[in-house]
């Protein structure tokens, strides 16, 4: 049985549909990411799962039980906010105890549960400190311990890494992943950062304008985007989209190679590009160009290995090749992928 099932959920704010018919089903123990830019409805969806908002239409089931109309107090869902929302006037210990006291957990179990949570997160030394005296990474660990301590059915993370410094973020991401795997609690993770979503999630859903564009594993999303939105959203730099009549051709930057490296027996697409800019990225070059003789002056990006020999120079016109299996086609008007 799925831990979380979202069935055709809609949420209107006035006439505006923030969430417009979403279906999600998580698998046992997975980390499921909701990826979308701001205003895509991902946070509203998460708040509905937590019970902070009620859906205008549709149903939300946790372990098979409908929770529509159930207050957050009566759902066993833990949430970690972007701000961590630690209670500043309480010590770390009292912060972690708060959900236990609020949920009337018998007093005899408090100490054992707190010890368990802090040992998993390694924050034994912080117990008597105030949240204001903690670093960003420590705050996250305390917030996670507070979420973990009451044995929730479902974890909700709302951009938990965005408040951290870039250096700390990588470590915190690994810790988060590790924690989730060890506890095996099904987790929904909201983020606008595709690096986080692709790196952390077992599966993810890309949201745009209140709808889900595609659901799948990170590899599926990257290799075969279902529509133009996902194609242009996932990948850094994203897929090159080149209009050909009624169709749009999509090619990843790393799938374009110099024409002279083209294997003999492979068919595919050849593009003639005028080079506008070459960026050295360390292990590779990013080559920006536009199609020679085309009226669409859309930039095309090519990844060229550093060890690849000759480097294109600015102003050159060069030919690039992509094999047939690496080229995806989309319908121009609907945006959907063509078979």
């Amino acid at each position, binding site marked *: 049985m799925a831990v979380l099932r979202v069935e055709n959920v809609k949420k209107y704010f006035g006439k505006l549909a923030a969430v417009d018919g979403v279906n999600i089903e998580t698998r046992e123990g997975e980390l499921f990411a909701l990826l979308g830019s701001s205003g895509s409805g991902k946070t509203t969806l998460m708040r509905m799962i937590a019970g*902070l908002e009620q859906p205008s239409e549709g149903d939300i089931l946790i372990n098979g039980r409908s929770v529509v109309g159930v207050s957050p107090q009566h759902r066993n869902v833990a949430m970690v*906010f972007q701000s961590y*929302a630690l209670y500043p006037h309480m010590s770390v210990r009292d912060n972690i105890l*708060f959900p236990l006291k*609020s949920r009337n957990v018998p007093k005899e179990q408090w100490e054992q549960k707190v010890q368990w949570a802090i040992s998993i997160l390694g924050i034994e030394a912080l117990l008597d400190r105030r949240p204001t005296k903690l670093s960003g990474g420590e705050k996250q660990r305390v917030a996670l311990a507070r979420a973990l301590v009451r044995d929730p059915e479902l974890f909700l993370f709302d951009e938990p890494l965005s408040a951290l410094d870039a250096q700390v973020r990588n470590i915190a991401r690994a810790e988060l992943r590790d924690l989730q795997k060890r506890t095996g609690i099904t987790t929904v993770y909201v983020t606008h950062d595709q690096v986080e979503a692709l790196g952390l999630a077992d599966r993810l859903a890309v949201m745009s304008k209140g709808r889900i564009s595609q659901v799948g594993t990170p590899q599926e999303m990257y290799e075969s985007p279902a529509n133009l939105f996902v194609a242009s959203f996932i990948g850094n730099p994203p897929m090159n989209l080149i209009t050909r009549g009624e169709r749009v051709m999509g090619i990843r930057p790393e799938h374009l190679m110099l024409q002279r490296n083209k294997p003999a027996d492979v068919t595919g697409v050849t593009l003639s590009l005028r080079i506008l800019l070459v960026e050295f990225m360390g292990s590779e070059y990013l080559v920006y160009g536009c199609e020679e003789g085309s009226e669409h002056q859309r930039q095309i990006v090519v990844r060229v290995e550093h060890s690849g020999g000759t480097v294109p120079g600015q102003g050159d016109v060069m030919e690039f090749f992509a094999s047939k299996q690496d080229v995806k086609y989309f319908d121009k008007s609907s945006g959907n992928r063509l078979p």
Partner: protein
Amino acid sequence: MMNDNTVKPVHFVDQDRRLGWAMLSPAVIYIVGFIGVPFVLAILLSFSNATVGNPRITDLVGFANYVSLLHQPIFMTALKNSILITFLTLGILLVLATILSELLAIEFRYKKIFQTLLILPWAMPVSLAAIAWLWLLDSQFSPIDWMLTQIGILGPGGLLGPVRHLYYLGRDMLAIASVVTVNVWRLLPLATVIVLAGRLSIPQDRFDQAKIDGAGFFRILFRITIPALMPVLTVAMLFTALVVFGDMTTVALLTRGGPGHASQILPYWAFLQGIQGGDLAGGAAVALFMLPILLVVAILALRIAYRSQEA
């Protein structure tokens, strides 16, 4: 021959020390003239035997005025009432302002109208308010009495006996209760606005987190909201205490300290003795008796305000 290196005199405006004093002087003159001088005079008066007829402060009598105060039953009543009225007003204000700010923190229809009605007592002139309250609490024509009679609490067979009037301003405890009621009515708008400002500065995430952690309304109120409001509440309450303790308008307009001296308070008693009664020295002594109490409260309020600013 002219020396080109002559130091040009620094312009007045560029001399920070002098300019500073020049700009501070209006405030300093005001404080010295309207607060400092009367204050020193009051101290001198309280140690003299000056009267309105003979206002010289040359005859110093030492602590005689203070000693005689302690033997006056009216003074002791006034001291007791001042403290009682201040505490009751503050306690009721604290509870009501917290409840109202909780109400105003949520969105509902007609909230704007509710807010406007709420602020009205603060905008109303004291004299106008006093007339309205004198009518509401009138011994013969009180609408409150009339309503209580209509619903069967007053009048023959009623809960509070056969009488049709409670004589709010004519009975000891009811007179004090009336003063407290009017005080609360006057100060509630300001108190609510202060508490509401503190309430709205708490991040919404914290309330959402508490709900998800499983806390109900009262746990959130007592464990999350009120602790977060504590610094604001303490400072607001201490400053309000200064206002209530030193204010005589409510009593002067409503009960005139009556019945007898049952609702007498220190500032009004100082006024009655010193100005109405002509005993300048005695009145000054009463007024100065409030000084240590007000000073302690004021120092506490300022220290807490500064400390919460640093935190």
